């Protein structure tokens, strides 16, 4: 492994009972790159992110995050990344500032640096003047920005974004991507994201991998992907690679956890 490969996944497999959600995938992401991980619903994107971010144990295969194996050294691996989940993960009963403070303490940000970093991160996403508002009063876009600010507090080397622009209006989506591109450029942060918006992936990603039915079907720069598929847009390339059939997937994260609960035979 060379030093500049910040994310390395090797022969990753995840099975739920007899269903192979992720079926032997391997990829590497170089430091400072923006990596788009695309695929239809139920293709295995979120399962892969969960394995990368230590909340789900792979059935087989290995992962290295900034040189740390999430299974063997979960705490070191967790220190190396920040994550913005698909669904909000804020405490609505706490203020924006309190959510930030809690994160800073959880990630061991030195006490003397906490206030300064919180201020800088909140200013970066334009929420500094709302630091005393309860998170539950924020709109979807503000919540997302707060979560991005929070994920940056411990200056991670990797930022995971699971559909960061889902449900946001075009203005907010553009803002969010501007922040993210600035981060990758200025802070040399590696960004790993998923999205269903192909135009966004085309615009911001340095490299894209398309996953379908648990397998990576293609990898490369957006330009290379379009060229190989002989299509004008990434969306057409995506559809030509993954087909027109509409995929079924449980509607929400809640349904997914319940489905998983049933698989594991819990109450």
């Amino acid at each position, binding site marked *: 492994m060379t030093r500049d490969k910040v994310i390395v996944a090797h022969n990753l497999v995840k099975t739920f009972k007899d269903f192979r959600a992720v079926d032997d995938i391997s990829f590497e992401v170089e430091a400072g790159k923006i990596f788009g991980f695309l695929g239809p619903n139920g293709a295995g994107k979120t399962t892969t992110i969960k394995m990368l971010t230590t*909340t789900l144990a792979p059935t087989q295969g290995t992962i290295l995050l900034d040189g740390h194996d999430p299974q063997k050294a979960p705490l070191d691996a*967790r220190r190396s990344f920040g994550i913005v989940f698909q669904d909000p*993960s*804020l*405490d609505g009963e706490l203020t924006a500032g309190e959510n930030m403070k*809690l994160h800073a*303490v959880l990630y061991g940000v030195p006490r003397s640096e906490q206030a300064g970093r919180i201020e800088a991160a909140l200013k970066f996403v334009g929420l500094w003047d709302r630091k005393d508002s309860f998170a539950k009063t924020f709109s979807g876009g503000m919540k997302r920005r707060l979560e991005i600010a929070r994920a940056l507090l411990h200056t991670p080397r990797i930022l995971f974004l699971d559909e960061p622009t889902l449900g946001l209006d075009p203005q907010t989506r553009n803002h969010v991507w501007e922040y993210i591109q600035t981060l990758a450029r200025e802070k040399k942060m590696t960004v790993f994201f998923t999205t269903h918006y192909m135009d966004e992936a085309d615009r911001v990603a340095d490299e894209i991998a398309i996953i379908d039915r648990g397998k990576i079907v293609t990898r490369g720069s957006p330009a290379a992907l379009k060229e190989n598929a002989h299509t004008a847009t990434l969306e057409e390339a995506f559809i030509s690679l993954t087909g027109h059939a509409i995929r079924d997937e449980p509607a929400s994260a809640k349904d997914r956890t319940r489905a998983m609960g049933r698989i594991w035979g819990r*109450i």
Partner: protein
Amino acid sequence: MSIIYILWLRQLKRYSRSRARMLASLAQPLLFLFAMGFGFGPTYQQAGNGNYIQFLAPGIVAMAILFSAMFSGIEILWDRQFGFLKETLVAPVARIQIVLGRTLGGATVAMIQGLIVFVFCLMAGFRIQNYELLPVAAAFMFLIAMLFAAVGTTVGSLIEDMQAFPLIMNFLVMPMFFFSGALFPVRNLTGILHGFLRLNPLTYGVDGLRGALSHGFAFGIVPDFLLLGLATLVLLAVGNYFFSRIEV
């Protein structure tokens, strides 16, 4: 330490900001105190057992703590559904710190609820027999709170949605309350029901609290303390085990 503290503080902030929850979880113990206390009081007195409020009040305080601590633990369910749980699970901290922070927070909230109910008991006519035993009473309150916050953590880690909640209330919480000697003397139950009562850790909490505040100990202060303390440690370990197995 700072991690346990910040998670403890979070529980307290949530509690102090939710007046509705505070009132709702006070209603049931107070209903029991006034309805049972004044309803059965004369009968209890005629049977030659003395003042029923003096007997009942420590049981009601224990009940308030039991309910409040269980609810705090089960808050894991809400955190799971509203997403905040993930934030703590991907943080670079040992699960045991999260469990301890949450459990201590839930236990502190439960203690406060118990103290509020205790003040109502004093207003209903309860009289403290031994002021020098008040620290002992506080220690028992804390152990009850920790024990059931740990039970709540276990339950909250195991169930995934609120539909299982009535099940927990009817098959775990209410039986533990009724078979704890909170409402009637433990010697009233015999046979298998007495067996239930002796297996129920809350029994020793109620006895310890009642012993310290008014009536003297049925099982003795040392057995009460050791059995309750042991149950608390075991449940903390169990809660930590199941919490560590959560995958989101």
